[in-house]
Every structure is written in structure tokens, then in C-alpha cells.
């Protein structure tokens, strides 16, 4: 299929339909409303159901229902909307149901702004809802990668019976890039024998539930979930590293910010510096293994985020005090400039010389 020009939000919609998503429930919010618009126009043509719910809370509970029936289902929103969905997300994770949630992040806290941000890192990776649960969180950095990860997200959601979050931002949702839809589908997914599709009187009913009246039963369930998360941690870490060999400083950044960091890195390397980039693609599980690849020559890590600094905590955990960690970022909907990142790098390197 030839490349077409699509906005991130539209491309996610198309990729979801191609991945077999047949239900979408959502509520519009800038900067991800085009995902709803796209789904409202195209999902019915594919035999699917689009429904604009009365609220984000209603939408996520509709996702809960469709996922319980074994359908491929998606919802999307932006930061404050995703905050509203947290209760439902926790229920879905507790009931071990597969679904894909898209967050095109905008400035916060509260109603915040409608400009891009990455300040839902903690909400995404720490769980905004209650209980011991984890989401598999992907942070693509281009429209093409976002398209590819929509397919992966649906497959991984089914494989682990777990909600998957695609963490984008306003830039990725609104930006236009050429894309190709040629993602490989997983072929070895488990049968959804847990789905509530009717017993035909031939088997005991399947039950979708996150309520446990017996504390020890719930603890057993939590231990089971933890074991599942441990498997995800072992098998699902993804990252991209560029020029880290012999780098004096490695930038750690994801999504849109990684693109800005990459530009800054290229500019400085042209001037004879040795800067590398480590780009987490999974925010949870955090790509700890990537940090094992870092060179002894690397004395500094610079975390760049469109927030006041949230992922930096994970970098601190993984770093175990080995390297000096600095931070630069903008928040509230302000996009950091390449020159801001370059200046910060030079300041760090000059300080240590």
C-alpha cells in the first residue's frame, strides 16, 4: 500500500480498524477529537460500532463491557479525560480484560491547556486508579510508529489480557506525516474462552468481575497479576538507542521530546560532541535493559520531558547512582526547543570539564 499523509489521530483510527477493532467509545476533547471523528465516519463502514458516550466515565465502562464480550475495543481521550477514566481502567485491569486506550496528552494539572505535554507519565505508569495494577504503556515517536504500535497494542492486550495504553501527545495527534499500513498481525494469540458470549447451556457461565468478598482470594488474584506483570517486565521492554557507544552524555527522552532531543544531538555531534540518545518505547515496563548497554565513557544522563520531570524518577531508579542525572523540560503546553536542549547539554559538559 502506498504511503498516505495522515494526522496522528486519524492514523490511529485507521490502524485500529485494520487491527480488527470493531468498537470505539469515547468523548471528544482537544487534541484528540479527530480520532473520534475518524471512527464515527469509518468504523460503521467496517461493520463496527462507534458511540459518543455521555462522558469519559461512561465510555470507559462501555469499553469494559465490550472487552468482557471478547471484542477488540478502543477508547481515546486527552489528559483530563483519561483522568476521568481511571476508575474504569482499574476495573478492566482487575478483571483482566484486553483493550487499547489512547492518551494524546495535553498540559495539566486540572483542565490545564489544549497544547501538548507529557505530564501524564505518572498517571500512565503508576496507575491513576486504585490497586496493584499495571498497564502496558507504549510511547511512539512518529505517526508511522504509532500506526505500527496500534496493531501491537491490540495483540499484546489479548496476549496478556491486560489494558494497553498508547501515550502520545498533542503534537503526535495533530501532526501530519506519510504512513504505510502494513503491520504484521500476531498469529498465536490465546482463544478468548473467558469471554461472556453466552453459554448455549453447554458450559458454566463466564463471569467478568473485579470484586472479591474474600480478602485472601483477592490477594491470590493480586499475586497472579504480579506474576503476569513480571512476565511483561521480562519480555516487553522496548527502546531505541542512537549513538550511545562512547557517548559523553546520553539524552533520555520519549515520544515527541525524543525527536527534539535527536535534533539537538545531531546538531551537537556535527560540532564534534559525542552525544547519544536512549528513547524508551515502553514507559511501562520501563526499559531497564537499555541502560545496561550504556558505555563506561558515559558520565551524564540528561532527561528531557514535556513536564516538570516525571520519567526522571524511573531513570534515577534504573541508574542506581552510577551517572549524574540532569533534567530539562517545558510544561503546561510549551514545547521545548532544540536550542534549549543544546544549551543544557553544553552547560552540563562545561561544568564537568
Amino acid at each position, binding site marked *: 500500500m502506498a504511503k*498516505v*499523509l495522515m494526522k496522528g489521530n486519524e492514523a490511529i483510527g485507521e490502524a485500529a480498524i485494520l487491527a480488527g477493532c470493531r468498537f470505539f467509545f469515547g468523548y471528544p476533547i482537544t487534541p484528540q477529537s479527530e480520532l473520534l471523528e475518524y471512527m464515527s465516519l469509518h468504523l460503521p463502514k467496517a461493520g463496527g460500532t462507534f458511540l459518543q458516550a455521555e462522558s469519559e466515565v461512561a465510555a470507559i465502562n462501555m469499553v469494559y463491557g465490550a472487552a468482557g464480550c471478547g471484542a477488540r475495543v478502543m477508547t481515546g481521550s486527552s489528559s483530563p479525560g483519561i483522568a476521568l477514566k481511571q476508575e474504569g481502567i482499574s476495573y478492566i485491569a482487575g478483571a483482566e480484560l484486553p483493550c487499547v486506550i489512547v492518551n494524546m496528552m495535553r498540559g495539566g494539572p486540572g483542565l490545564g491547556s*489544549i497544547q501538548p505535554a507529557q505530564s501524564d507519565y505518572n498517571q500512565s505508569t503508576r496507575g491513576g486508579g486504585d490497586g496493584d495494577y499495571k498497564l502496558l504503556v507504549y510511547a511512539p515517536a512518529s505517526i508511522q510508529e504509532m500506526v505500527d504500535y496500534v496493531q501491537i497494542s491490540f495483540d499484546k492486550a489479548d496476549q496478556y489480557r491486560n489494558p494497553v495504553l498508547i501515550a502520545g501527545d498533542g503534537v503526535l495527534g495533530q501532526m*501530519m506525516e*506519510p504512513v504505510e499500513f502494513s503491520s504484521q498481525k500476531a498469529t498465536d494469540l490465546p482463544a478468548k474462552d473467558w469471554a461472556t458470549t453466552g453459554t448455549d447451556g453447554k458450559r458454566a457461565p463466564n463471569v467478568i468481575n473485579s470484586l472479591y468478598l474474600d480478602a485472601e482470594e483477592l490477594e491470590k488474584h493480586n499475586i497472579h497479576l504480579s506474576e503476569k506483570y513480571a512476565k511483561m517486565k521480562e519480555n516487553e521492554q522496548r527502546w531505541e538507542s542512537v549513538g550511545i557507544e562512547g557517548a559523553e552524555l546520553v539524552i533520555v527522552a520519549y515520544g515527541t521530546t525524543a525527536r527534539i532531543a535527536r535534533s539537538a544531538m545531531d546538531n551537537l555531534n556535527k560540532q564534534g560532541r559525542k552525544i547519544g540518545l536512549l528513547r524508551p518505547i515502553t514507559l511501562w515496563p520501563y526499559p531497564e535493559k537499555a541502560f545496561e548497554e550504556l558505555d563506561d565513557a558515559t558520565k551524564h544522563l540528561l532527561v528531557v520531558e514535556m513536564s516538570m520531570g516525571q520519567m526522571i524518577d524511573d531513570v534515577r531508579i534504573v541508574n542506581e547512582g552510577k551517572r549524574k542525572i540532569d533534567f530539562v523540560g517545558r510544561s503546561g503546553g510549551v514545547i521545548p526547543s532544540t536550542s534549549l536542549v543544546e544549551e543544557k547539554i553544553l552547560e552540563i559538559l562545561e561544568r564537568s570539564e
Partner: protein
Amino acid sequence: MDCESFGAKKMPKNTSRISVIVGHYGTGKSEMAVSLAMKKRKEGRKIALGDLDIVNVYFRSREKADFLEEQDIRVVSSLLGHRSSLDLPAISSEIRQYFFNPDYDVILDVGGDKAGTNALVTFREDILSVGYEMLFTVNAYRPQTSDLSGLQLHLEGIEYVSGLKVTGLAVTTHQLRSTTVADVIKGYSLAKELSLKREIPIRYICALPGVLQELPEGMEGEQVPIGMYLREEWM
């Protein structure tokens, strides 16, 4: 303003001091508007750029207001200023004064699709009275405008809502920084089909300067070098 001008759908007078840029969203209207403003300014014209996009707050020409004002191009957008976070249907009436000032060329960057075109309606009578050209962008890589029927659907919708006629086509087919001559010719061929079908001339070919230089001779339409003003270097 003469009383004749109040008739709807009147064919424009033979002047193109007002250039109205319309089309399907994401086809390259704002990038074209800014690049056309730069081109006309370099040719010595006084320019007022009216950003009428009240549909989508991202990637609007007003984002480049500071840069454009440095080039002595007047940018008019919301009456509350150019701030990109203002998601309000508020357009400054200041743009009207440039419609009636013969020293100025006016470029109107209209929001995408029929929805975006609604904002144009409030200025229709003024635009009709002064005369205008309305340019419809043709981007063959946008899925909804990649064939003749898709283009016609959008063109008709925009004409219906605006009460104005599309008078020229603008080829804005691209693949960002990797655009080739073949990409532009693909867009041009599609625009030519539309041009023949609707009897609307191809008015502009918009592309990266390097690509424009390589285009074959004899293509219809004036060249507009695209400056990629709305894309940061990392995009």
C-alpha cells in the same frame, strides 16, 4: 460597496487582491498561506494574512505571526490575540480594513472542510464586493482527496457553505521534506483532472524550492516555494 454585491454566488470581478485559501483539512492550506504571503511580500506587495481557522488550534498560520510581522506582513487572527491556546470562534474584524485598502493584498487562510469554511461566510459580502480568487488545495496523498470524486465532494461542500466559487486550484501534494518531482506531478495530474472537469485553472504549484526547480517546463500555474514554516526542524 455597490448594491449588486449582495447577490449570492456572483462570479468574482476580475481582480485577485483577495486570495481565499480553502480545502480539505490537512492538505497544506496554512503552509501555503504563509509561503504565498512570503512570496508576495518579496515581490514588494503589502500583505495582510487573515487566519480564519477556528476549527483546529494546532498548526495554524498565526503560530508564525511574530516571524511574519518581522517580514512586515500583518497577521490578523483572534480579536484576543494570536495565542495558540485560545480555542474560541473569535476573528478580529480588523481584517476587513485590508479588504478595502487597495495597497494591500489579502490572504485568507480558512479552516479545513465545510466546517472550517463557515467562518468565511461572515465576510462573504465584503469579499464579493471587492473581488477575490478562491484557491482550492489539491493534495493527492490525503486519503479523502486522493481521487476526483473526493476532491469534487470537498470542493462542492466548500462552495455551498461559503457561497463563493473556487476560481483556481493549488497543487499542494507533498511528502514533507522527502517530496520528489514525481510527487508533485502526481498532484498536478490529479489537479488537471479536476481542472478539466470543473473548468477551473491551476493557479499555483506549491513545493519545496529544490523540487520546483526540477519540474518540467510548460506546467500550468505559478510556482510558490514552500518554506516549511509550520514544521519545526525536528518534525
